[in-house]
């Protein structure tokens, strides 16, 4: 079952005098339970592609279908609701709301979705436990390390059970030990919650952990390999 379908998508930027084809004719699909990484050098279009999949931006041409929604048919405000309901985001940094505690951050999207309080609290507890931060419910982001902050961000993205989680270079600002821990947790959640993860990196260590590696170059997919290591 396909969670995401990308059909011949182009994204062109005209901001500068030269035209930049950030995504240049990509056709791809992701299935439920994927643990896929998009790799490629800086400027190859990873962020742009993830933004398109997540409904943060619209393609210049081509079609993206997520959980049955044709994204090009959604109005801007509908796109915001679409993201809230179907997509989990983990960014490179500055993911958390600084004035909220770890638990409140994890509960944030669930409260946007108007989950009842008890269910929300239970889910928050379960996820903070899963990311190894059961004792940090009341810590503010500024009291957490970078790796801990990213784990809270993963928990927040996962909490309302979206269709998939998009993570744009989630380990870019982490030391290798924290990066390993984060990947361990993502892998575990991928397995236990059957959550689809699509993330990008240009870090070889991260790449090795994925079961599917998609390589981008100049906005084009140059390889799409499934590996079967570590399960």
């Amino acid at each position: 079952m396909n969670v995401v379908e990308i059909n011949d998508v182009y994204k062109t930027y005209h901001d500068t005098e030269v035209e930049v084809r950030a995504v240049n004719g990509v056709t791809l699909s992701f299935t439920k339970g994927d643990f896929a990484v998009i790799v490629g050098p800086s400027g190859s279009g990873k962020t742009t592609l993830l933004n398109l999949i997540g409904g943060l931006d619209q393609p210049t041409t081509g079609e993206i279908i997520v959980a049955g929604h044709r994204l090009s048919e959604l109005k801007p405000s509908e796109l915001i609701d679409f993201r809230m309901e179907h997509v989990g985001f983990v960014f490179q940094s500055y993911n958390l709301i600084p004035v909220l505690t770890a638990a409140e951050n994890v509960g944030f999207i669930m409260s946007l979705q108007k989950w009842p309080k008890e269910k929300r609290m239970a889910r928050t507890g379960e996820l903070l436990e899963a990311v190894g931060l059961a004792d940090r419910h009341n810590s503010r982001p500024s009291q957490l390390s970078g790796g801990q902050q990213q784990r809270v961000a993963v928990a927040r993205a996962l909490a309302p059970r979206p269709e998939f989680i998009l993570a744009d270079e989630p380990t870019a600002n982490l030391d290798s030990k924290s990066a390993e821990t984060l990947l361990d947790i993502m892998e575990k959640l991928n397995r236990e919650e059957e959550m689809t993860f699509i993330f990008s990196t240009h870090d070889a260590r991260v790449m090795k952990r994925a079961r599917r590696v998609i390589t981008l170059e100049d906005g084009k997919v140059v390889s799409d390999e499934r590996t079967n290591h570590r399960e």
Partner: protein
Amino acid sequence: MKDRQLAWRNLWRNRKRTLITAASVFFAIFFALIMRSFQLGTYDKMYSDVIRSYSGYLQLQHPSYLDEPGLDNGLILDPELTRKLEQDPNVEAVVPRIESFALAAAGNRTQGVMVIGVEPERESKALNIRNRIVRYKLTPGAVEALKGEELPGRLAKNTELFAGEAFTEAEDLMSVLGISKKDSAGLLPLLRNHTSFPGSYLSAGESGYAIIGNGLSDYLEAVPGDTIVLIGQGYHGTSAAGLYVVKGVVSMPNPEIDNRFVCLTLDDARWLYGAPDMATSAIIAIKDGSDKVLTATQQRLGAVTGEDLAVRNWKEMNALLLNQMEADNRSGAIMIGILYLVIAFGVFGTVLMMMAERRREFGMLVSIGMRKGRLAGIVGLEMLLMGVIGVIAGVIASLPIVFLGHLRPLRFTGEMARMYEDYGFEPVMPMLLPDTYYLWQVVVVLLILAVAIAFSIRKIFKLNVINALRA
């Protein structure tokens, strides 16, 4: 997490910025209110002084008197008309008076003066000249005598500072000298002994007496018991001259009046100017002088008098003073405008900084599914809270000062006082109690705030999520 909790926590995450913004709103509203209170209080006092010591709220006049005052445009008050006017619910009494010019002389000094002829008893229904009789005065002699008394330091200094000032009540004297209620009992007899000043008000039926202003008394060096000469021009060009014994000295609030004030009985004034039965105008003493009631009363009375006579209100009679105050008011408004401009720039500066600093955060929030309208609501609420805290604090901080400044007006001494008097103002700055002007200042500040809020809301709606995240 409720939106307003989120807004509240955001307020305290950059404490310094919040405090600076709230403080600039605080100072804007605080200084504007204090400035306004002084300004309006001064005008208010000037108006009520001139109304209660000189013009009254309403006057009955010959229609041409306003443009060409003088006995030639005077009137003979018909008792029947007086009776009709006094039937009006807001009218207390109709009191005829003569007002004209003369030259006053005593010893070898002369001064152009304004002569007022009044019915001593009835006059007090409209004006309070009777209550302005000077009973205590820091004459040079009194100051000398007090020096020999070994007064407490501050008191000794104040007696010199306020030398020459005249008082109608012992309480005023004490308050100006800075004597507390507690000490007054001990000092009062001593002060009374040295500073009492003779004199009393006119009484009906007696003739040949005058009451003069304190400033005029100083200038002519004429005190109660001395004689002054009045020379002027009477009705239809006759010559007018008379000798009067000073019976009392009054302290008039407006220095211009105080320096030129001579008051006779109406009969003496009629005799002096050769105009028996006449009056230049009649003061209509009323019960309620507030603007709306006054206008209505003026209209009703105008209908009674018909076209032969005019009913004028104090604004018409004091047009010059009003103009002067309005010009002053405009310059005050410009000052406050500049103050607000400075504050507006300050508030915008912090808003711009805040928006730039939180761009990424806003991008992240919209990405994960927060509607822009909701985000704008939270940010707007934060700014509103900051502003409202500043406004409330400013209003509260101004209140004690305004009340104190109203009860114990600032009184200038020395050079400053002389300067004020030269401009024709009493050197006193009372403050006006909170009134609609408070509301206006608050409205103006909230408007500035509303513009800043609208600006940041617009910014949020125009936020490009992709660019915000890349920043």
